[in-house]
């Protein structure tokens, strides 16, 4: 086996040094009847070319030849090649959690930079060194709010990513926490009347998303005002943080959390991604996850360490702020590199490109008879399109033209059966947008026989 460094002779010498005759003796503590007889029914061993061939085959059975207008919590952005060049340095990707600070300053300083970038983007005072993904970050934010307020109810916007809401329910189901959902207004934003009505004295937090699941940008200020009036916290989840390049951060929020996959992490069929959580300094001790702090060494030189570890499971065990241990460090490093490359100007310019592309696409799609954008509030790079009939048929027609035309909202919102969620990032060309609009036009004007007759 090519990964194993010892030769048969070395194995024999080592075995002898342990005072054993046969390797089986080392497994003597496993009762005979519990030992595996025979071999595992597994493929392999495969050589490197065979492994490549196997995965290349799988990679070919993919949508890589398609134009994709999918967003909904996972965003295709161009990844500068420098990211992988740096991530592939063994010192970064083969290191463990930086518990031994003296030989982990590289990871620690990069995490400190990540925390700083996230506070700058979100307008909050402190950010942690990552959580698993946006869905668990939103959930951890809620658990944090429950601890801070010592209350047991949360109000969640239905425009929070549906899968995030599912994760939240899985986590709080057994903690006696009541989750109340509120709907959206005609603008696509949170329905403030429903919010007002749902708030109670026992509400720990209000959770919204912005841009929300429909791509609509929320105005956090009035929502914060309503939430704060009943001493509830406002949690704002963000799944497309590139928006923060040109959109004012929700400074009124008490916790800003979400998914930072957009920042240099591949879409990769759903993971690994990059959860983040930022908040105000006064809530620091209730934060989940690792934190890197700046300090000095015994000779006065600046250095970085994991700090405030007493919040965490390895010390506080069942009383910890979270059970998280391993987080998404390498993804956070990717984001740090990505944001450093973009910088202030690049981030803004890229965000403007996304804004322009999405608005151009919306405009083009709306020229198709029967298609319209139903929500009036501002959006960033994602928006909802109403289509004349159930969306699945149009999507099939688009697939036939090598376009994945967005997400059918029926999947999560039965009342929006004839609505598609469309995302247009900088990776989608004008030609692809025009082609998509053209297919839609032909389809609805009866020019496309495919697939079946529309009902």
């Amino acid at each position, binding site marked *: 086996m090519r990964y194993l460094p010892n030769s048969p002779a070395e194995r024999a010498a080592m075995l002898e040094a342990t005072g054993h005759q046969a390797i089986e003796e080392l497994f003597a503590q496993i009762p005979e009847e519990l030992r595996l007889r025979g071999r595992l029914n597994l493929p392999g061993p495969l050589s490197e070319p065979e*492994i490549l061939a196997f995965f290349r085959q799988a990679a070919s059975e*993919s949508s890589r030849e398609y134009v994709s207008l999918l967003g909904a*919590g996972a965003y295709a952005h161009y990844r500068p090649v420098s990211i992988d060049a740096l991530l592939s340095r063994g010192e970064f990707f*083969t290191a463990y959690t930086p518990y031994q600070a003296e030989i982990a300053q590289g990871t620690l300083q990069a995490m400190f930079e990540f925390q700083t970038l996230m506070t700058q983007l979100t307008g909050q005072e402190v950010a942690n060194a990552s959580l698993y993904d946006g869905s668990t970050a939103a959930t951890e934010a809620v658990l944090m709010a429950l601890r801070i307020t010592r209350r047991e109810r949360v109000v969640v916007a239905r425009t929070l990513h549906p899968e995030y809401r599912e994760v939240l329910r899985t986590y709080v189901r057994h903690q006696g926490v009541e989750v109340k959902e509120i709907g959206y207004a005609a603008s696509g934003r949170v329905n403030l009347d429903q919010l007002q009505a749902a708030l109670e004295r026992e509400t720990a937090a209000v959770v919204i998303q912005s841009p929300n699941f429909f791509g609509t940008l929320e105005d956090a200020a009035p929502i914060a005002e309503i939430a704060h009036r009943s001493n509830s916290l406002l949690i704002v989840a963000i799944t497309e943080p590139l928006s923060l390049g040109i959109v004012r951060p929700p400074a009124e929020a008490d916790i800003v959390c979400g998914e930072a996959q957009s920042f240099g992490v591949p879409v*990769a069929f759903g993971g*690994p991604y990059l959860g983040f959580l930022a908040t105000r300094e006064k809530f620091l001790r209730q934060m989940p996850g690792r934190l890197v702090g700046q300090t000095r060494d015994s000779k006065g030189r600046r250095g970085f360490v994991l700090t405030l570890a007493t919040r965490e499971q390895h010390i506080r065990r069942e009383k910890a702020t979270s059970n998280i241990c391993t987080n998404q460090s390498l993804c956070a*490093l990717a984001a740090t590199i990505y944001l450093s490359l973009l910088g202030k100007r690049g981030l803004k310019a890229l965000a403007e490109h996304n804004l322009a592309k999405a608005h151009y696409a919306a405009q083009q799609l709306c020229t198709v008879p029967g298609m319209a954008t139903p929500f009036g509030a501002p959006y960033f790079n994602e928006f909802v399109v109403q289509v004349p009939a159930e969306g699945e048929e149009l999507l099939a027609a688009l697939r036939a033209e090598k376009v994945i035309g967005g997400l059918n909202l029926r999947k999560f919102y039965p009342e929006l059966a004839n609505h598609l969620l469309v995302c247009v990032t900088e990776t989608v060309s004008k030609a692809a947008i025009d082609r998509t609009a053209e297919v839609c036009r032909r389809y609805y004007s009866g020019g496309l026989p495919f697939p079946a007759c529309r009902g």
Partner: protein
Amino acid sequence: MDDRRRHSALPGEPGQAPSVAKDMENRIRQARPHVTRNEDLIFEVSSPGKSGVELPPLDVPTVCAEELLGKGLHRADVEGFPEVSELEVIRHFTRLSTWNYGVDTGLYPLGSCTMKYNPRINEVVASLEGLATDHPYTPESLTQGCLRILHEAARCLAEITGMDAVSLQPAAGAQGELTGILLIRACLADRGNPRKHILVPDSAHGTNPASATISGYEVRNIKSNARGCVDLAELDRALTEDVAGLMLTNPNTLGIFETQIREISSLVHARGGLVYMDGANMNALVGVARPADFGVDVLHLNLHKTFSTPHGGGGPGSGPVAVKRGLEPYLPVPTIEQSTDGSYRLDYDRPKSIGRVRAFYGNFGVVVRALAYILANGPEGLRQTTEDAVLNANYVMSRLQDVYELPYDQACMHECVFSDRRQAARGVRTMDIAKRLIDYGFHPYTTAFPLIVSGALMIEPTESASQAELDNFIEAMRSIAAEIEEDPPFVLKAPHTTRISRLDEATAARKPLLRWKPE
């Protein structure tokens, strides 16, 4: 030259005349390329007007952001954001990387973390276009390759553990634990009573009690016996009708196999509870024994430990959960199924499911890497890997037990645990020994865990250590023991050879400084 001198980590120390050494040190310092040793923060190397990317020309009409968003929502720019060129970014992070120690650098015997070699082919296949680029909501018919990888990986992990079904959704070990305990809860609730307590041995990792608590259970600790294993009598007493289950790490955190695991499982089952196995230490078992045969009902695996996916400086990991048939209906949604026509699909129609534990289907990119590792090894390679891992740990144990105290004196599995008792008598604790080990060019072992050993030194060499490297490590450990006899203060100030010395962790915690701010 005596043995200790030969392995002394500092040139010119001890033995050399101090003034000569000092002079040399000063001259070296003057000649040191300063900037590579003291890379500033990215914000500090920044200056206005620079960027590391250029965007292609915008091929659609430009828009006025302020107009589209409105004054209230529009942001002019992000204050304090860095502005650097591409070259500066490359140099910045390359320099930072050189301050790290990774598995690629050398032996990384961090106990319970399984710091094994991370094969390069894994990285290559995970970044293939099609695998790294498919969107999670891609229509199933267009992403059969990704679905097949998930299905095949789940099948392999089921075979390795002997279990009936696997969910790849949990993002890391701790989330696997949470998922597993939620499965137990759902199953018992279905039987009529979810019960109230989860038993956790005192040797367990901190995530165990933390995960059980989130699942709505109260944690009851049970004491280990003199062998460091679960005490059957103690377990018997603790197993009331309120106990939902037992969380057990096997081999346990002392690297010892729970020989009575069958009796333990039977006892828990007889009282109506279920058995959860923390699979963090599966590197001792793959191809040799299968948890399904132990009477385990559910376990999690750490793909970033046993299955060679990189730790990445603290993630991403992946914590698949494997269950027996009885728990399968409760697995998180969706599961990946194969239809009769051979195609793969996501199954959301699972009414008894505990729900989702994270968005989408888990850390797909990590699963790709783990499958590549399994394929590279095949059944024989995996078994040989396990044997080498266990042999390496026993080799280290046998050659250090005359200088470091072995609190549980018996053959170990994939890791061995010493105590600093003898060294503590000279005022030197496990963390100090660990810091001195850095001077010898090794990453330290795990310190002060498990908690049932006072001043633990937990050493897991993994199969990726050659005999030559282990011999160097062993000599370093012996040399440090000798140094402690002669000059404890010298060891207490270690490390001496790193870019920075020990950091003031107390001030870091008292006055937390968690982000850079402009002067």
